[in-house]
């Protein structure tokens, strides 16, 4: 055979354009080193259970019972499972036609979508329609489905915050759309700049791009900032004026580490605004079981809720969902349990609260430890992690380091992160993977390592950073940033 049917040249160009640094170069290098026997601390991805966080007990009990319904018929089951877990399992099984092994409705089991709708209603104070809630195999699949529906070609642009979680840039590249950045202002706690939003849109339009949608990530990833109600109002107003679908990535809504800005959903603010905007502004909101204090990444459970999307568009979205038949049923149950957890008076309530609070309070403490640790370094400035799971310190790199990086054919932050990895085993993601202003460098790490390991990890980082700066800094005793 003269030439292969599929070689690099004949690959779909859009696939080649896709980049996803979270499991890119640094992660691959870290995996190599791990194989060689080096101890690696994987802080490249928001994957709590991989760093020792235990699953919540109650949901695992319920799902295990659903997996093996024969247990429910056995009198010994109450020796091993509390009565409320048994009851919940029976309940969920009754919603299915055939248990966990049957394809459900392509949107997910109706009863669970109702649980999600009830949760949204309680959270926001406005009713939610289960028919407009689609359960998905993780929030990412939902994001991809919506972007695929929106993007017709290169002429369609999507406004995405920079820095961003690179699912967005990857999906836009894959679907052949245009990435329209709006820069978050680091010196203003990663705030949105109204002028910049408008400017980004204007520039895109000047290039002939039709801006179709705007992504917000709230709480932010990698930046961690929580949007205020006023921020959200302005964003909603902006989208309404500019005729954009708002895509609200709210997967970190349970991860809030300060009290000044609790989580408010985009939908709530929209409904509060009332009037025509609340009936017309198109909004899709995303959530997941992977984050929060649940951290059940491996289940691949998520949903999206559509607001003001015309019914014919919903039908098309349904059609595409139906091609994949149904989201995985165990994860649907995790979602149901997450939005409808044990209540006061339930047997498992105390344990559930204890476990949840323990995780959240620890995350709050770790957010502080990490931020402070980074800020104690002369060449590092780090905004506080108000929410989500990450720390995104800015690292000033001396010119000679940048030069060395260039010689090695690497971006400066990649160079730094690789050296950090080799020296300490800490596997981070260079800021270039998320986007940053020209000449400004960051890295993203998670706040997920076990609390007892945190101080040691920060010490390890500081030691490396000091040595790096000693090596590359021209003037010893460098000035503080």
């Amino acid at each position, binding site marked *: 055979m003269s030439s292969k049917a599929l070689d690099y040249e004949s690959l779909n160009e859009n696939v080649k354009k896709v980049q*996803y640094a979270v499991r890119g170069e640094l992660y691959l290098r870290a995996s190599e080193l791990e194989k060689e026997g080096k101890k690696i601390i994987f802080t490249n991805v928001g994957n709590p259970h991989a760093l020792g966080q235990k699953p919540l007990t109650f949901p695992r009990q319920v799902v295990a019972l659903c997996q093996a319904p024969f247990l429910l018929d056995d009198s010994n089951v109450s*020796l091993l499972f509390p009565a409320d877990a048994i009851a919940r399992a029976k309940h969920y099984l009754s919603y299915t036609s055939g248990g966990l092994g049957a394809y459900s409705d392509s949107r997910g089991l109706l009863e669970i979508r109702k649980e999600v709708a009830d949760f949204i209603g309680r959270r926001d104070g406005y009713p939610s329609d289960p028919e407009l809630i689609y359960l998905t195999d993780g929030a990412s699949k939902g994001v991809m489905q919506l972007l695929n529906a929106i993007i017709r070609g290169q002429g369609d642009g999507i406004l995405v915050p920079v820095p961003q979680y690179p699912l967005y840039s990857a999906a836009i590249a894959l679907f052949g759309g245009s990435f329209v950045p709006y820069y978050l202002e680091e010196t203003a706690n990663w705030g949105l700049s109204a002028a910049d939003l408008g400017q980004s*849109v204007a520039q895109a339009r000047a290039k002939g791009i039709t801006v179709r*949608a705007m992504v917000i990530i709230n709480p932010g990833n990698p930046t961690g900032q929580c949007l205020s109600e006023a921020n959200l109002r*302005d964003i909603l107003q902006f989208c309404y004026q500019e005729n*954009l679908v708002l895509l609200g990535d709210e997967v970190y809504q349970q991860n809030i580490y300060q009290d000044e800005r609790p989580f408010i959903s985009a939908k709530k603010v929209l409904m509060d605004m009332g009037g025509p905007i609340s009936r017309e502004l198109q909004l899709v909101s995303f959530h997941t079981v992977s984050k929060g204090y649940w951290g059940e990444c491996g289940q691949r459970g998520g949903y999206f809720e559509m607001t003001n999307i015309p019914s014919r*568009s919903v039908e098309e979205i349904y059609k595409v969902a139906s*091609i994949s038949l149904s989201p995985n049923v165990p994860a649907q149950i995790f979602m149901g349990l997450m939005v409808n957890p044990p209540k006061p008076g339930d047997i498992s309530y105390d344990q559930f609260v204890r476990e949840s609070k323990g995780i959240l309070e620890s995350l709050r403490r770790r957010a502080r430890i990490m931020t402070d640790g980074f800020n104690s370094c002369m060449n590092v400035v780090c905004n506080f992690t108000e929410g989500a799971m990450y720390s995104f310190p800015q690292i000033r790199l001396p010119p000679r380091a940048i030069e060395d990086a260039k010689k090695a054919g690497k971006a400066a932050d990649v160079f730094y992160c690789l050296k950090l990895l080799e020296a300490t085993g800490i596997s981070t993601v260079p800021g270039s993977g998320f986007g940053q*202003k020209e000449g400004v460098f960051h890295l993203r790490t998670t706040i997920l390592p076990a609390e007892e390991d945190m101080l040691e990890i920060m010490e390890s980082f500081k030691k490396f950073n000091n040595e790096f700066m000693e090596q590359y800094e021209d003037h010893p005793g460098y000035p503080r940033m």
Partner: protein
Amino acid sequence: MQNFSVVSSFPLKPACTFTIPKYIVKFPPLRLCSRLHTSSLTSSTMDPSPLTIDTINPKVLKCEYAVRGEVVTIAQRLQQELKDNPGSHPFEEILYCNIGNPQSLGQHPITFFREVLALCDHPFLLDKSEISCLFSADSIRRAQKILGLIPGKATGAYSHSQGIKGLREAIAAGIEARDGFPSNPDDIFLTDGASPGVHMMMRLLIRSESDGLLCPIPQYPLYSASIALHGGTLVPYYLNEATGWGLDISELKKQLHAARSNGMSVRALVVINPGNPTGQVLTEENQKQIVEFCKKEGLIILADEVYQANVYVPEKQFHSFKKVARSMGYGEKEISIVSFHSVSKGFYGECGKRGGYYEVTGFSADIRAQIYKLASVNLCSNIAGQILASLIMNPPKAGDDSYESYLAERDGILSSLARRAKTLEDAFNSLEGVTCNKAEGAMYLFPQIYLPEKAIKAAAAAKTAPDAFYCKRLLNATGIVVVPGTGFGQVPGTWHFRCTVLPQEEKIPAVVSRLSEFHEDFMNQFRD
């Protein structure tokens, strides 16, 4: 290892570069300006609303998927009506024979698999002595073994993007035991069901409408839908109904050359074996011809082998395409093959778990890196599905505690499926104007119905395809849900529908009699 190019500044920078402030100005938490002046923004022609039927991606509009299409939507409505108002229809229940969803129609899961999954979901149980009353000893050992393969025993963590290494090794071992040829765990990608793997390959292969994929007609409409969604062109090759849905190489050649002479770049051949909806199992000879053809023409083989455990006739056997190719002496340099498998079918029927994998062989390292990269964007497939995939490829063996009961469950299900397939096949063949090929494998029957001219006219008047007309009538009269042949493709002018063999065995006689009664009435009404 592929060096992903990482850029220091973001690909789409705005025209003006931002300069780093020389001094840090601490702003209070930023509020957006209270009013944006729309007049200051350039407004191009604004779509009336960002996501409407007029502005949605046209490829989404173009794709179709009849398995959960129109007839099913009507069925759901009828089901609700029955619930709200019992007796409102001439049948007691809706019988969904539209979809290969065995457990929704009463098929039981394999006990051993569920035992292992439950223990992996809640490993706390493994420390309890009481579990020996509830779980088989080998399921406990297997769960412990599997958890040992997972870093930190954390089933709630994202795994390696190809799936947990130890599980891929188990699957590779299972493939090797099945085929007699080695399988590399690094060639395996675990996915949320087989379907995402198919989408992945379409994504890689389709650059434009000029890229064609050879697909069998009739086909499982995932292929047509996925090709449409990714903007490619489906190049049909017709299976021969007269010869039990035979795959003729002459037909392949004809279609390939026609497509090429139209300027199309045909990249791959989709082959579904055992077939869906057609149910035929390819002979080894036929498979060798196909391999030879693809090798000669430089086509990738996309081998959908999800029904490999569903073979009902003693004269046929499943052979994987990889095995056939290797037995011909063709290795990775000679032929590219992607093999798809799933936990949804077979005798395990675990559709709701979304477990599956694809095995890629014969691709260069840089292509493999691209496949990995795409897989990584979704991080990983669900862990329980991964575990299940490893279980189906590595089930209880002779001597294991669960072996006997596993065999009994497996053979019970398979023999029942074979009986139901035969009963329904005979039933269809006994209907006036209906011929039905044998289901040698898979889960479906695809009878051809002769529709009289009067029926065709009535269908046209109802603005519906003739086979859809028949299926809707069938549904309204009997509550039985099948999928019109148009959804799968058929020789123009012929009409079919796809019916699963999955209703419980005790219900089959009622299905047969209701169907026969309906058909007789239909023919009485529309006979020429």
